[in-house]
């Protein structure tokens, strides 16, 4: 496991507000199905993300990434470091 210090410029995807953009630096977490799925869906370093909206009950969120719409939970979004 590589520990990650979140610096001033960096935030997690969870902290982005609706309409805000960011660039993915890194996806944290153990190797496994969830992380792999996130990467297969295009969540790799350098990808631009835009938070489109949150679901009616606040979670999950919808983002635009690599030209398409993806939904994921805040719990997963928390593992995605962006700047």
């Amino acid at each position, binding site marked *: 496991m590589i520990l990650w210090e979140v610096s001033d410029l960096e935030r997690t995807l969870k902290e982005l507000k609706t309409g805000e953009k960011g660039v993915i630096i890194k*996806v944290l977490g153990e190797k496994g199905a969830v992380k792999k799925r996130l990467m297969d*869906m*295009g969540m790799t370093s*350098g990808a631009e993300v*835009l938070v489109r909206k949150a679901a*009616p009950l606040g979670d*999950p969120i919808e983002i635009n990434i690599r*030209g398409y*719409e993806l*939904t994921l939970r805040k719990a997963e979004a928390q593992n995605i470091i962006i700047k």
Partner: protein
Amino acid sequence: MPLKFALVGNPNCGKTTLFNEITGSTQYVGNWPGVTIEKREGKAKKIQEDVLIIDLPGIYSLSPYSMEEIIARDYIINEMPDVVINIVDGTNIERNFYLTIQLIELGVNVVVALNMMDAVEAKGDKIDLKILEGSLKVPVVPITASKGKGVTELLEKALNVAQTAAAAGGSPLLQEIHNESIVASIEEIENRIIPTLESKVQNPRWTSLKLLEGDEKVQEALKVSVESLNQIKVYQEDLEKKFDMDIETIVADSRYRFTTDVTRKAVKKKAQASDLTISDKIDKVVTNRVLAIPLFLAMMFGIFSVTFGTVGSSTIDFVDGLVNDTIATFVLSLLEGAGAAVWLQDLIVGGIIGGLGSMLVFVPQIMILFFFLAILEDTGYMARAAFVMDRLLRKLGLSGKSFIPMLIGFGCTVPAVMSTRTLENEKDRRLTIMLVPFMSCGARLPVYALYTAAFFANNQTMVVFSLYLLGIAVAVLSGVFLKKTILKGEVAPFVMELPPYRIPTFKGLMIHMWDRGKGFVKKAGTIIFAAAVVIWFLQYFNFSFQAVSEPADSILGAIGNAIAPVFAPLGFGDWQSAVALLTGFIAKEAVVSTMGILHGVAEATESSTDLITALRTVFTPLTAYAFMAFSLLYLPCMAAFATIKREMNSWKWTLITVGYSTGIAWVVAFLIFQGGKMMGFN
């Protein structure tokens, strides 16, 4: 030997649409990821040559993490199709190419079909095909599968590739896709490890890459020794140190870098990511903070009002008049004219026409229901519903994805149980399968339609809606209960693509309606027909095979009377109800056809089979409601049972599911009847 072309691509990119177009078949298409879950084969009709087309489930990657991915990958590797037609959604090239690259890495013959060109044009995007072909080094053919455009060209290209291309050994592109350090490690493995393996490796390049990625399925298949694995680990750790990421991320990153690069060069998008598309505007309403859930309920209510309201019930009157009056009277007069024996007249008119007729009258209504469900599936609403409901479903330990099987369950439990395959987690799948049968399927509809017409004529829609809600409520409580007891586990993740809204095609809607509806007509002509004949005989004769004057003295009467006491505390302890519920295992709508025979037979020869009047003498509104609730919840039909067994792959879990639902059905019906009685209803 026919040539084999396999259709491979991301979920929802139009594979089945293309398959239908090429083969002239009518397979299920829908606007949500995960529609196709099984491999389908068909002969190509558009060309002279003998070509077999294979439709596969959609996948995002060739990683070994989900069932579909393993199925698709195994198919490509083991069956070795002559050409892999990789369908790419032209509006979403960057992500779709992630899979394309993996297919190219695999070294198979790939032809890229760039689909949805109509949508690309409508958006005003420009795609440079020359650049794409130049970078990928495979043919790229633009098509619009839904309109059949470009399909012949695509097939010609694929034939060309199949006939000319030499079997590709390794992929020349690997060096261009991946950075030097990765390529170096791949070469190390290829030169040092692969030759030491016992089994002969078909595709050393790809195998080396997979071993570097740490693909466990490949390790197992090749029985890689611990020594070799340790050696591979050294290469992995070197890279991990260098890039400060784990090995899977390094390789995925590298692939995406390549797709981004190609897309940037070849695709000129007109709109910005932040511009609002039509889908976003629709979503402003559909997934609105306040409106989303009321809108969903209103929509379901609307669907049921139309199905059970004026439109639906007018179809009943029509078919009822046709079957039970016109046809029955006509057949009876024919039989009488021909001097047929009384028992034969009774079998044909009372047993077959009366039994099947009482169920067939509801087929148009079932079709109407399927039509509306088809609209939900084809527009793209399914994925939104999953998005909106995820938060609530998480309380049950499920994810929004489980909501899709549940919605499909309103049509039929069988495809609903099968569609749980898209759920990644085994426990979630199990729980979802256990809950799906509580979603009231189309086959229960005849039961409701009959009983509400008899006892709740003034507020049919409300009563039926309440039954659907009852099913949902039982599913929710069961979810909480099961998750706390026998199905404890982690919370399932939720990562899902939201497709753009699409206007459903007329053809698509008709295929849907027919595909799901024809099953009912078929069932009526086969097993329900057989059951009706058997039921008729059993209620006509006693154990010494003499015709009885009172059906209660018949074989069936004896069986019914033996089990009826079980249902007595629920308010319907007569032998006819017991028998009808037993036959409900054959198919839920058989409950109605059996009732039709048992209550209609006496008067059948007098040409009036008024089942409703007969039921009014046996049931009260309260017992009718308890009976409907029991029919809704108790053991799923035979077909659903078999599907559950297959998908759970365990007798234990299948029996738990069936036992649980029947137990719950008894308790709920008991509470309704006894509670209602105490409150003074009847």
